[in-house]
């Protein structure tokens, strides 16, 4: 049972990362290849803030989240928007996608230059603790991670459904021209969506650092997972991202109990390929709405 709990917590964090990816894709039709590098950046910032201030990493969300929102907002404003504008009439903006991939290389090597290639982890007061839930014992850090991920995903969903900004974002995703005609500031909405997608990474980063090693290429691991999750759940779907993430997390942790690490990876890809063949648009995605 603790295997399932571990799978759930890791899966919820995958889901959170995939949520940022799927949000940016759903609204702007851009696959953000810098997602992994931005996650790494958030983890590095969280780690150093924790090391310098000694604050509980869970409180750090309130600091790192806004920082990453601004980073994402500025990325969209000064890097993505100029390229997006020059490709206005293209349905699938390929240059923007490459721009984010180049950004990922720049960020990763910047981190390598500044922080070095060391593996670091925030050894917090609860890193070694466990929590007993009835018969199940889980690591405290992972348990908090699960709670944070689910709460944030829920709040985020409510935000998209209930607030005016959320409605603006969804309207822009459905039809940016119609949204502009209704008086929505589309470029600004894009920047907010990008910022939110990045802020979600900050939450995932804070949940991760008490039990996961940080190093400059840590983002790549999560990026690939996030891609699989997004395809599984359906591009642009919020519940799809979370459920897809949990599914992958469970497959990984349960698989690891019964077979070698390689076979587990193969199993994940087998599921991935099967979904591609049987229902390519994923569990919740629609073939046409994007």
């Amino acid at each position, binding site marked *: 049972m603790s295997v399932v709990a571990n799978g759930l917590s890791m899966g919820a964090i995958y889901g959170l990362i995939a949520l940022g990816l799927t949000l940016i*894709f759903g609204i702007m*039709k851009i*696959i953000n*290849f810098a997602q992994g590098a931005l996650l790494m950046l958030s983890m590095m910032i969280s780690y150093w803030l924790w090391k310098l201030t000694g604050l509980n990493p869970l409180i750090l969300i309130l600091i790192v989240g806004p920082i990453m929102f601004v980073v994402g907002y500025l990325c969209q404003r000064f*890097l993505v928007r*100029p*390229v997006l504008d*020059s*490709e206005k009439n293209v*349905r*699938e903006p*390929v*240059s923007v*996608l*490459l*721009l984010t*991939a*180049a*950004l990922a*290389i*720049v960020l*990763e*090597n*910047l*981190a*390598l*230059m500044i922080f*070095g*290639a060391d593996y670091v982890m925030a050894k917090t007061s609860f890193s070694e603790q466990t929590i007993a839930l009835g018969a199940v014992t889980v690591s405290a850090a992972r348990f908090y991670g699960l709670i944070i991920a689910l709460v944030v995903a829920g709040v985020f969903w409510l935000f998209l459904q209930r607030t005016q900004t959320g409605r603006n974002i969804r309207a822009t995703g459905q039809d940016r021209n119609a949204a502009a005609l209704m008086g929505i500031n589309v470029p600004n909405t894009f920047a907010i969506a990008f910022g939110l997608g990045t802020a979600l990474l900050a939450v995932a980063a804070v949940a991760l650092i008490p039990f996961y090693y940080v190093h*400059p290429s840590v983002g*790549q691991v999560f*990026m*690939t997972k996030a*891609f*699989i999750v*997004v*395809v599984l759940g359906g*591009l642009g779907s919020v519940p799809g991202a979370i459920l897809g993430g949990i599914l992958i997390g469970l497959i990984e942790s349960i698989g690891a109990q019964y077979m*070698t*690490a*390689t076979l587990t*990876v*193969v199993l*994940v*890809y087998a599921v*991935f*390929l099967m979904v*591609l*063949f049987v229902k*390519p*648009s994923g569990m919740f995605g629609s*073939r046409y709405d*994007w």
Partner: protein
Amino acid sequence: MKFDKKLLLLIGLVVILLLVPMMVTRPYFLHVIIMCLLWAYLASSWNIIGGFAGQLSLGHGIYTATGAYVTMMLFNTFGISPWLGLFVGGAAAVLISVLIGFPTFGLRGAYYALATVAISEGIVVIINSTHELGPFSVGGAEGLIVKMVGDSAAALQFSSKIPYYYLILFMLFLVIAVSYWIKTSKLGYCLIALKEDEDAAAAMGINVRNNKLIAAMISAFMTALGGVFYAVLIRYLEPNAIAGGSMSTQMVFLSIVGGSGTILGPVIGGILLSLISEVIRFYLGGQLMGLHLFIYGVIVLLVIMYQPRGIVALLGQIVQRFSGPKTVEGGVSGVKDSGA
């Protein structure tokens, strides 16, 4: 008149390229040139599906790895010459390209891009942890060492770098010829049509999925040959180097920076950018980890932001500015400028 000048320029260029090994005597420099040509070759191979058909493959490392590993496993275990093995490796790569392309090409571009990334990362993990596969030794994370047999043309092993230079030069000409053939054939026009507007292309009676699949298969085969060349040149296959994300993204960047969808863009981008990155590494590499890749990434960022159609478009503009109307009349000064 104009045609003659162009032909003369071309012949001159080919002669210079053929004479390079006589002029460059230090093996290290020749190796750098060989690697630049290999990158130009790989970028051109990627360009067939990524540029001509506009299908963003971010996992072409799968095909270099498939070509290299299959060929070298056959050679190490059964002593089958790489000349024969490359067809098996190429066929395996084609098979994988169909496996990825068939489900995703029915959908829009993004699914193909995501699927290629995810599958290539998966293949890296699998190779890294596979030591034996039936009678074959794969080597796992320690990598696969190519069995040495001494100087042998049949095994493609030479102690001198010069044969490798001519081999990769020939391969580069081959991929340019294939690109030229595709671009001027019906397939090429179908690819341009579906790249511009898939729905309109389908409405004109083009079988979108099949055309994409054919382009993907040709691209996979050519890329696998590049992998085989890498294997016989380096004689050591390290999973992350031959299959990893940097191999895959490198091909894309070189092609885009040079000018994707053109015949010569990826060649120019491949040679120029890998030369720059080699020079940066030579002078700055030892000082600060990651610096040369950082500079490399910034260059790519700037090109995408300010010259999205690639270096080839920039060269075209320069040629036009200097010679513009004269080229139309006589073509004399125009050709001279571009050659000088």
